[in-house]
């Protein structure tokens, strides 16, 4: 079991030998058993929570929202006007997505989302945030040097494209509507959704070009 120091800018190094359980592992186990003993938490509820966020809720939800906005002009307008209502109508309501704003990328403007103060993120459409989103590096730099951060992701935007960085300081959650890639005329929603990566909905990536699917995020 690894106890590595994710979110601390150390990348993927493992923090020590895994033959012994780390103090953190022991501490979490002790806390959980104490809470169970006191009746403060329910074991089956903990498992259900983990399964929900690890297996059921993830960025494929957001990809379907984006794909629909690309093919359905009325939905697109609704999504930009009242993001929460449009997203909830697709069956993705709930915690950390109660109030939503969708911001649209255009040839002139690129949007990026961060939470400099903690890790606010639209869970119902994107699931739990990836490690880098919670990292000190992303939280510190994205507001001051968004172009540098984008370079870390291999994204180079034209100098004259304006960047808007949305710092999620309130309970409003942000989703980026990426630009629809060229060469996708006539594609249906399901096929288009394959081009929508998690990072393209945070603004650290772009939607994939046709034929580039399967290349990860």
């Amino acid at each position, binding site marked *: *079991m690894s106890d590595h120091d994710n979110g601390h800018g150390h990348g993927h190094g493992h923090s020590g030998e895994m033959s012994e359980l780390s103090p953190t592992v022991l501490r979490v186990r002790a806390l959980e058993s104490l809470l169970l003993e006191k009746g403060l938490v329910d074991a089956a509820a903990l498992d259900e929570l983990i399964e929900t966020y690890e297996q059921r809720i993830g960025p494929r939800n957001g990809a379907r929202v984006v794909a629909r906005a690309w093919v359905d002009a009325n939905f697109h307008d609704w999504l930009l006007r009242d993001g929460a209502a449009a997203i909830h109508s697709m069956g993705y309501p709930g915690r950390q997505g109660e109030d939503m704003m969708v911001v649209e990328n255009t040839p002139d403007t690129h949007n990026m989302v961060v939470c400099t103060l903690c890790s606010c993120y639209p869970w119902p459409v994107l699931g739990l945030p990836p490690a880098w989103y919670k990292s000190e590096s992303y939280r510190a730099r994205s507001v001051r040097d968004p172009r540098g951060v984008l370079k870390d992701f291999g994204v180079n935007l034209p100098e004259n494209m304006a960047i808007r960085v949305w*710092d999620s300081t*309130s309970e409003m959650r942000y989703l980026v509507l990426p630009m629809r890639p060229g060469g996708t005329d006539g594609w249906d929603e399901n096929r288009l959704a394959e081009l929508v990566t998690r990072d393209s909905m945070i603004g650290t990536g772009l939607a994939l070009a046709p034929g580039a699917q399967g290349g990860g995020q």
Partner: protein
Amino acid sequence: MNGAHDLGGMHGFGAVDPDPDGPLFHADWERRVLAINLALGAIGAWNLDQKRYAVENVPAGQYFAASYYQRWLYALDTLLVEKGLLTAAELASGKAAPGSEKHRPALLAADVKPALSRGASARMDDDIPVRFKVGDTVRARNIHPRGHTRLPRYARGKTGRIMRHHGVFLFPDIHAMESRREAQNCYAVSFAARELWGDDAGPGDAVIIDLWDPYLEPVA
């Protein structure tokens, strides 16, 4: 508070590692901490802003040395004792004190789906006067409260423009410190990147920050 959590603009953390195929959890204990945090939150002994404030109060050196879910763990330890759900002795020993109260869990497995689907919006329906309109120039106040605030340091004293009125929302500063649900208007305020960071920033770039009315003052 001017804590370690208020990271916007800081140097020294290196490049971002995009880790495209990285797992959501890097160890099983991280899963457990996430779930414990959500299950304990359902008890209602503390609110989300108090949880955030507990994370912010992790001492700065410890905050930077900790991983993300370790910070949550430290914050939960603090809250559990502070709110009287556990004693410090129980936390240290990992054993319930003899004769101590046995609770009933606030969240059972069958409650998880409805509770998560319902969520809990921070929007409030109080009808309060709106001080600013879209396009107004405003200044973020230069305040440094010891308590919880969602006005990041990098924006304080800076001038921006009201971009959108989000509506009336629960004011986190009061919610964290007094548990009271005070209603305040919340706005998306756009700051030119050069106003925040000087001439090195892109001329057309902007940072948009959601700010509540008490954080703002009019600019004539």
